[in-house]
């Protein structure tokens, strides 16, 4: 039954249903009043990177060893690392300066993938607006460092996987270390045994 104008009427019925629906059905009115209602972000949503440190003291517990892989791999090159040197000038396994310019960073999360030491992760904080363009948009080390507990807070599953992996690495390393220590001990024991009774053939 399509007399002229029926299409328009159907259109009116749809808008009427939406108009009344927005008062009745909950899924139609999806606007969230932002400052009052905070959006509930899904678990692995990401905004800008941050550095993870274990234990309490940020400096000591920092996982980052300044290997600069992320600095090389970062597509927009927004990470800037300078390795720490001790008094004698010998490079240490710690970054002295670790800056991320979050006005350049496009939160693509490649640094998280390529980091072999699980030291950089993606934060979920998105209220980062600031007044001065350069000062507060370049996050230096102190602003980037956040505890592992915080990491567990924002990405629980991913954090527990990372901890499990670190645990496994540590155990493997210990096992390897133990094995090496044990092998070294065996070698020294043989050498000692050899040294004990005269060395028939020296060479």
């Amino acid at each position: 039954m399509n007399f002229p104008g029926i299409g328009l009427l159907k259109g009116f019925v749809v808008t009427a249903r939406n108009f009344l629906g927005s008062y009745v059905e909950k899924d139609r009115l999806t606007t969230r009043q932002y400052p009052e209602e905070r959006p509930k972000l899904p678990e692995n949503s990401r905004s800008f990177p941050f550095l993870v440190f274990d234990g309490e003291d940020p400096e000591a517990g920092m996982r980052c060893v300044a290997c600069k892989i992320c600095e090389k791999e970062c597509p927009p090159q927004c990470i800037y690392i300078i390795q720490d040197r001790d008094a004698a000038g010998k490079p240490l396994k710690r970054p002295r300066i670790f800056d991320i310019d979050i006005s350049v960073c496009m939160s693509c999360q490649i640094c998280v993938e390529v980091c072999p030491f699980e030291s950089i992760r993606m934060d979920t904080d998105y209220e980062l607006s600031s007044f001065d363009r350069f000062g507060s948009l370049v996050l230096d080390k102190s602003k980037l460092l956040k505890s592992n507990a915080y990491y567990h807070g924002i990405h629980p599953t991913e954090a527990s996987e990372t901890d499990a992996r670190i645990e496994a690495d540590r155990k493997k390393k210990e096992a390897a270390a133990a094995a090496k220590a044990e092998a070294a001990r065996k070698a020294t024991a043989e050498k000692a045994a050899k040294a004990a009774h005269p060395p028939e053939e020296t060479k």
Partner: protein
Amino acid sequence: MNVTLDGETVVKLQPVFGYLHRNHEKIAEGNSWLAAVPYTDRLDYICPLTNNWAYTLAVETLAGLEVPERAEYIRIITAELTRLQNHVAFMGFILADMGAWGSALMYAFREREKILDLFEALTGARMMCNYMRFGGCRCDLPSGWLESAGQLVEGFPAFLDEMEALLTGNEILLARLQGVAPLTPERAINGGLSGPILRAAGVDYDIRKVDNYGLYSRFKFRVPRGRVGDCYDRFMIRVLEARESVEILKQALVGIPDGPVVNPKAKQRGFRPPAGEAYGRIEGPKGELGFYLISDGSDRPYRFRVRPPSLINLTLLEELCLGTKIADVMVILGSIDIVLGEVDR
């Protein structure tokens, strides 16, 4: 674009673009293969996952990597979800162009938000997903994702019926869209068009059926074709394609197997594909999106070329608009459905 008018009718029309040119291809030549993936998100920013897939498909043909079955299924699910939200957004945009003060636009975006929330739960970002890797996907589906995707796909036909009730029979919309800028199949093929516009003109060419890339042969779906090829057909083709995508999604969500998400042998960081060249293409929501890569064995692509469907579809805009009224130019540009990120790269 600057349009020369004689009273109401269009005499000359010259699109002016290039304002969103970000030198995408030169940057990709300076960065490693992996670093190019997040840039493909920004090509056609309305459907990032299909861009990723096109790039990784090209790299996989270049390096000859196999992709595990679960990854293929996830790729098809995300691509069809992207096509769905693109076509739904298109329906909203074309109504806004015609001055309907955004009612259809808001309904479309209400549904699109649900799809974007699914993307955020899976990839971490709503639009800049950066999710596909060489040989598979970056991470596996979070728990409960498949159920919520199933729910969404379940409710989608009802929403599409509501949109069609609002739009398809609407006499004003018929008057504004029908008979405007018809396109003959020969003209469409000679113009190098691809995607819904080509199929609206009556040419049966869908790369998902032609190339059968990524296990598409395993799913049963139909490819709609128009007869007249005017704006109304272009609009209706997208509506019908959205329904087909829902069919594919239903089958894919049920049949997804378990298994690894990425090919374990594929190296992501220092990835050095063998020297040579490859052209990988997929059926993006806007048309045939292709990547032509030349590798000289080093860890940086020697040449990184993108075949942008929006730009190529746009070349026919002037010819379609000549002789039409000024109000039609808006509708014709809307019906071609371009995204400037892809036009200017």
